[in-house]
């Protein structure tokens, strides 16, 4: 069994306690009952269960949480946040972990942040999702050119996928939102 020196992780524990506190999540409220994990539909596929992920942060082992597959397999179904008897917003905690892991470049399941990036590029460029471009770019970036390739023609046949990009009359408002958010984030 792995030994962890909890004195060494104390400062990380404090850092994450404060970081999550600012988002309205009180890590120390969690008494490890496991109700989040019991209701989590993806728990069996995760390397650390939702309860264990909270525990990792309580103990200052944030690096393990950030490098886990768990945060990328979370489907954001909000069952954990709904059922927690201590009102710990585990789903929101997963969001914060995903954002940090992605920025630190340590995502254990890279295809998921690649999808989010590609999706948001589409929104920035067109104002709405341009699904055809999204699917093609995503497949190129993950180097699985023929991933779900059968679905495209199937959907097009039913008029559910379009060749042309959506046209949004927003006067460039969406591009400006992305620019202002970026400016704020990057200072």
């Amino acid at each position, binding site marked *: 069994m792995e030994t962890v020196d909890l004195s060494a992780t104390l400062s990380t524990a404090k850092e994450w306690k404060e970081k999550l506190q600012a*988002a309205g999540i009180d890590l120390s409220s969690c008494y490890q009952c496991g109700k989040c994990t019991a209701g989590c*539909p*993806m728990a069996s*596929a995760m390397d650390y269960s939702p309860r264990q992920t909270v525990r990792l942060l309580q103990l200052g082992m944030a690096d393990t949480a950030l490098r886990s597959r768990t945060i990328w*397999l979370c*489907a*954001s*179904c*909000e*069952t954990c*946040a*709904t059922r927690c008897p201590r009102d710990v*917003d585990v*789903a929101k905690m997963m*969001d*914060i972990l*995903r*954002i940090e892991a*992605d920025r630190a470049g340590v995502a254990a*399941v890279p*295809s*998921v*942040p690649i*999808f*989010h*990036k590609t*999706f*948001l590029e589409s*929104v920035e460029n067109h*104002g*709405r*999702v341009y*699904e055809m471009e999204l699917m093609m770019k995503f497949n190129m970036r993950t180097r699985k050119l023929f991933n*779900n390739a059968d*679905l495209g023609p*199937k*959907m097009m046949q*039913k*008029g*559910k*996928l*379009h060749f042309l990009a*959506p046209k*949004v*009359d*927003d*006067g460039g*408002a*969406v591009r*400006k*939102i*992305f620019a*202002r*958010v970026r400016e*704020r*984030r990057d200072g």
Partner: protein
Amino acid sequence: MKIAYYPGCSLDTTGIEFRLSTAYCASKLNLDLWELPGWNCCGASSAHSKDHLLSLALPARNLALAEKEGLDMAVPCAACYSRFKTVEAEVRQDEKVQQQVAHAIDMDYKATNNTRSLLEVFAGGVGLEQIESSVTKPLTGLKVACYYGCYLVRPPKLGHFDRAEDPQSMDNIISSLGGTPVDWPHKTECCGAGMITLSPNDGLPLSYEILRVAEICGAECLVTACPMCLMNLDLHQETINKKLKANFNLPVFYFTELMALAMGASPKEIGLNRHFVNPMPLVEKIGRRETA
């Protein structure tokens, strides 16, 4: 009744039947859906995994446009609805967030208006009585598993219109159409969402379970209010059958499609021909039961 209408990206593509059937029901029920001019994507499940402020600003611009007109906003897609409810709650709770969001969208937004799920607009606003009195072709004998999924009801702190466990609004609508909602335990289980495509080995079993339990409980079809759930259960039903050795043949409808059918719509005008699991044999069966 006039309300701002935010269709969301899916309703022009994968969820086109939701748009067509919603328009049909609105016209039958004198619901004035004013589509927001120049609406933008809400950021869906991607923005909140990338940047918190972005995940608030994208839906907020749409809400601000409706607020300017003094209107509440009707949102059909459950995933969009959840993003709108989130920004609404955060802006109301924290003035600092309100200012950050207003700066990001370069518009005033104070969340004085409300986001309403289309399900809530029909079940609560228009009301079951009016729905019932507009039915010309009742869904007599049709056994329906009402599938709510995640975002219509969770997390409850966002102030949803229905309860988080065992919600009722869709079941009530089906009853007022003359159909029979089945009692089943998977109303709010997750369908696997994006994991169906991003990690199919982990995602597909979730939708499989929903189909399996619906069938065991005697449902002839499922009904949902979420384009993502519908895509997973309908488009991917064939994949589920192949990969998980099943033999499902369960049509999946938007609740507005069943409403429209019961109000006399022809299957084609509301897009029933665009489903992947062919619903027509079941639709014809309803017709036969009704005349029997």
